[in-house]
């Protein structure tokens, strides 16, 4: 727990001076609040002795100062702490990205899929609460509690001891007790919620079929049972969860009464001036504001730690794909890209995806790679781009193992388009120009013409400045694929990999797309990875991936 927190704080660290400023302002807020009540109590007690009014000036000024300074300090504290949270978030994002970058896509493991990726991003976002809701409250509580205890000690050390005891009890004992009480139910509540959610979602999704097949009553009973379970557990949990707040109030009261008792006794013994009794009692009462948010902070910290641990687990992975110390010069205009007896998988203990696969792609050739879904066709793409290294055999460009080249050089020779190519939520121009941002307008126009997208792009009201929407949602499937192909051709690759470019197209559109892209590719080689018949007739060779090996298709 603590080591995870330490690692997380190192990963999402806050600038120290700002953190200190936030703690200072938070402490000031609470101390000023306590000061307001304490000086007001003193002022009234002293006034009851009916001294000359001038002798009260200091107390009056102090009361007014605290009255104005507290909201000001609170306002500044909120600004500084939120600013801090945003800075932490920005850093955490950059760092998470930097660590994930060398892992994508093959090293991301389970995070290769969209919804898990969204969860990862949400987990990174959750780190903004690490300081704001998790770390600041205990720091502020410690500092302001110390000030209140210190001030009390200056007047009556015994009362300071009582106050310190009461504050510590609320800060540590209350969260522990309520944590212990809710531990049993909290652990059962989450699974019960999960069961009910999936029963509900399933029932609603399948409602028409359940009704048609007359099976609705049975499913309804299951939802009712899951609901009963959850309500029963949650009701028991409510009993324990509410206890924390009540206990806090009771403990604070007991402490105040204790301080009051000690003050009264000290006054009776002549150790304490009578005008200080109200001051000490009201100071004690107000100082509990310091520890009040701690129970909530503990919960927040727990949730943030859980999110943080998932992020750490991922970012602490190391990519096994690294550039060689002494890279060979990049081949210019290579004439052959080959897979030689390759065996590959996504991790130790995983099944072999490719096992003895060989494939030669000569300059200018058009080769189709077919195979059932799940046969490992996309793994070939990952190997060619060196997102994944084979465990046996090699991938070579002009006979040179690509592990001897810099990754950047490999990727400027081999470009990919197709189903999984991502279109960013930006303009058409930005998306097509991704690989060569320095490309001129003429070059962009040329590739868009080549892939048969120019007429359509030109007619758009904003031309190529038109945004494509999130993941290219504003475009049709054919348009998306043409833009991806244009983007790949713009970098003038020696080999163009088309990975399932026709996945969401009808037969006619699929044939047209492949014909256009094949023509546009010119003397670059094209590897068409597909499970559909369209375009196969345009290829020089059709090979099939089956049981991890590549063979000529019948």
């Amino acid at each position: 727990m603590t080591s995870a927190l330490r690692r997380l704080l190192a990963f999402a660290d806050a600038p120290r001076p700002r953190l200190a400023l936030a703690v200072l302002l938070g402490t000031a807020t609470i101390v000023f609040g306590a000061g307001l009540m304490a000086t007001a109590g003193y002022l009234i007690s002293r006034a009851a002795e009916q001294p000359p009014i001038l002798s009260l000036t200091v107390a009056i000024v102090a009361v007014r100062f605290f009255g104005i300074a507290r909201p000001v300090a609170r306002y500044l504290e909120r600004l500084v702490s939120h600013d801090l949270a945003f800075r932490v978030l920005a850093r955490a994002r950059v760092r998470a990205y930097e660590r994930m970058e060398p892992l994508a896509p093959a090293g991301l493991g389970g995070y290769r899929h969209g919804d898990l990726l969204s969860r990862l991003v949400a987990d990174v976002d959750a780190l903004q609460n690490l300081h704001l809701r998790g770390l600041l409250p205990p720091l502020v509580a410690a500092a302001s509690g110390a000030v209140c205890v210190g001030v009390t000690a200056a007047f009556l050390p015994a009362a300071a001891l009582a106050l310190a005891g009461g504050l510590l009890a609320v800060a540590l004992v209350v969260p522990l007790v309520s944590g212990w009480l809710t531990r049993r139910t909290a652990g059962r509540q989450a699974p019960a919620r999960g069961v009910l959610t999936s029963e509900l979602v399933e029932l609603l999704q399948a409602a028409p079929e359940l009704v048609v097949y007359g099976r609705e009553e049975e499913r309804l009973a299951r939802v009712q049972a899951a609901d009963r379970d959850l309500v029963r557990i949650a009701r028991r949990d409510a009993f324990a969860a509410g206890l924390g707040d009540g206990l806090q109030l009771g403990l604070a009261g007991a402490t105040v009464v204790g301080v009051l008792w000690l003050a009264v006794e000290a006054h009776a013994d002549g150790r304490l001036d009578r005008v200080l009794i109200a001051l000490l009692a009201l100071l004690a009462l107000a100082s509990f504001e310091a520890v009040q948010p701690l129970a909530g902070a503990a919960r927040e910290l727990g949730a943030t730690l859980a999110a943080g641990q998932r992020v750490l687990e991922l970012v602490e992975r190391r990519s096994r794909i690294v550039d060689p110390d002494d890279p060979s010069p990049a081949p210019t205009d290579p004439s052959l890209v080959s897979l030689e007896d390759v065996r590959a998988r996504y991790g130790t203990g995983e099944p072999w995806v490719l096992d003895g696969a060989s494939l030669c792609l000569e300059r200018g050739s058009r080769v189709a790679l077919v195979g059932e879904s799940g046969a490992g066709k996309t793994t070939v793409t990952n190997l060619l781009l060196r997102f994944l290294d084979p465990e046996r055999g090699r991938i070579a460009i002009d006979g040179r193992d690509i592990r001897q080249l810099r990754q950047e050089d490999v990727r400027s020779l081999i470009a990919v388009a197709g189903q999984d190519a991502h279109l960013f939520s930006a303009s058409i121009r930005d998306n097509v120009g991704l690989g060569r941002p320095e490309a001129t307008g003429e070059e962009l126009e040329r590739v868009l013409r080549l892939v048969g997208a120019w007429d359509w792009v030109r007619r758009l009201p904003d031309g190529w400045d038109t945004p494509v929407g999130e993941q290219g949602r504003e475009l049709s499937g054919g348009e998306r694929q043409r833009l991806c192909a244009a983007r790949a051709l713009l970098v003038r690759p020696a080999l163009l990999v088309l990975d399932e470019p026709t996945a969401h197209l009808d037969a006619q559109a699929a044939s047209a797309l492949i014909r256009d892209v094949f023509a546009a590719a010119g003397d670059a080689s094209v590897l068409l990875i597909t499970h559909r018949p369209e375009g196969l007739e345009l290829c020089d060779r059709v090979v099939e991936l089956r049981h991890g090996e590549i063979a000529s298709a019948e």
Partner: protein
Amino acid sequence: MRTFDPRLLERASAVRRLLATDVVIGVGTALLVLLQAVLLARIVSHAFHGASPAALRVDLTLLVAVFAGRGVLTWSFEVAGRRAAQSVLSELRLDLVERRLRSQPRSADGAAEGEIVAAAVPGIDGLEAYFGRYLPQLVLACVVPAAVLCLVAAIDLRSALLMLVTLPLVPVFMWLIGRYTEERTRERWLALRLLSSHFLDVVRGLPTLRAFNRARAQVGVISDVGERYRRATMGTLRVGFLSGSVLELAATLGVALVAVTIGVRLVDGGLGLQAGLTVLVLAPELYLPLRQLGTQYHASADGLAVAEGILGLLEAAPAVANSGTLAAPSPESGPVRFEGVSFGYPSRSGLVLDGFELELRAGETVALVGPSGAGKSTVADLLLLLLEPQAGRITVDGVDLGSCRAESWREYVAWVPQRPSILRGSVADNIRLGDVSATDAQVRDAAVLAGADAFVQRLPDGYRTEIGDGGRQLSAGERRRIALARAFVRDAPLVLLDEPTADLDDESAAVVAEAVERLRVGRTLLVVAHRPELVRHADRIVRLEAGRAVAVAEKVAA
């Protein structure tokens, strides 16, 4: 955003009980707050005037009891609220589910419903905050300031007047600034969503960025976007935090004002110490409930939104009345006829079907074609009694289906929807959805006929393999074959197939088409389709256009 939805009162009996409990606890708390101030002031002033500690023992003990009492009331406030939240949400969830199954099996707006239902379980956090914290706070905000003002007025009218002047400033300022910030807050949330989606977009596109050697360059962009967002947001927050600060300023200045005025009057001898201290201790209690109400507001707004979402769904008009009482005739006994059937969805303008006519004769296969959105699936839903015609009627052997019990008719029907649902459970259980009493052998036979046996045999546990959410994921083609197996095992005389080969690759589509061929034997089929391999074998093709059946081709294939 309202603070309370009266529909909740009408529907959830737990809410009525809770409100009554809350008012009782609220009044109790207010009394204890007053008692606490009186006792504290009395102890201090007696000690001030030289009372011995022993003489104050009773008062001190009483004060401990008062604090303990407040602790217990706070606890019961929250327990009562949380329990009520659980009961309310449970009641709403079950009402929704029951209603969905009984009167609205085909939802009008599936997407929104899914979101609300997904929120209905975790939404309890918001609802607990609403019932367990916000509502009690609302009661306290009404009761405590009033009680405090009454007591202060009884002790010292001038202080009460002073408080009365500062108190209304609080809500007025809050309202003014709240209104001003609301719009900017919305802008900020929009910015936050944009920021989050930008990062998600970049992370999703990482493989593409790497493939084009552009991944490193994005580091600067991410950092720039974050910085821009921070600046814009801080600009909004500078104003947004003002409302809370003004409220707090009113409270602390109010306390300071009261303290200084009392102090000056004490010097003049116009007021006693005990009275002055009582008023001082009560002064913060006047503002505290209002301030806390403000902090609880946002957390609880989510909870109320969930409840309101469900209430909204519960109030939507039912799609089917299901009031028929007759036993439906079998489709083998006579033709199924759509007679001038019209139907329109409330969410869309115009009619989807407008005087639609169709006859299905026993044993024939009819293909229903037409552009997407023409109403092909609506025809299937009407025939399954998931929807009711708004005009015209559907008859079987001359009997109006509207006058028949829906269950009795559905016994004659099997259905393969376009996106078949897979329930959590084994493959065999999923096929048995068609007929709960089917033996293992019958399940297996149905799977063979549906072309599903081959892939099921390849699964690790065969027919006992767990599928559905959390289990093994099936491809679109595999799901379709499971649904076909359901139809085979049901062995119903009328089968509806909705786009059985859409989105399938050629191989899967061929397997499904063969299975449909086997299904035709001895049954009446209505196939909604546009792929040629299915339409080819139909006895008749009916084209749906502008809500009517238009072109009819008889016997297109031998």
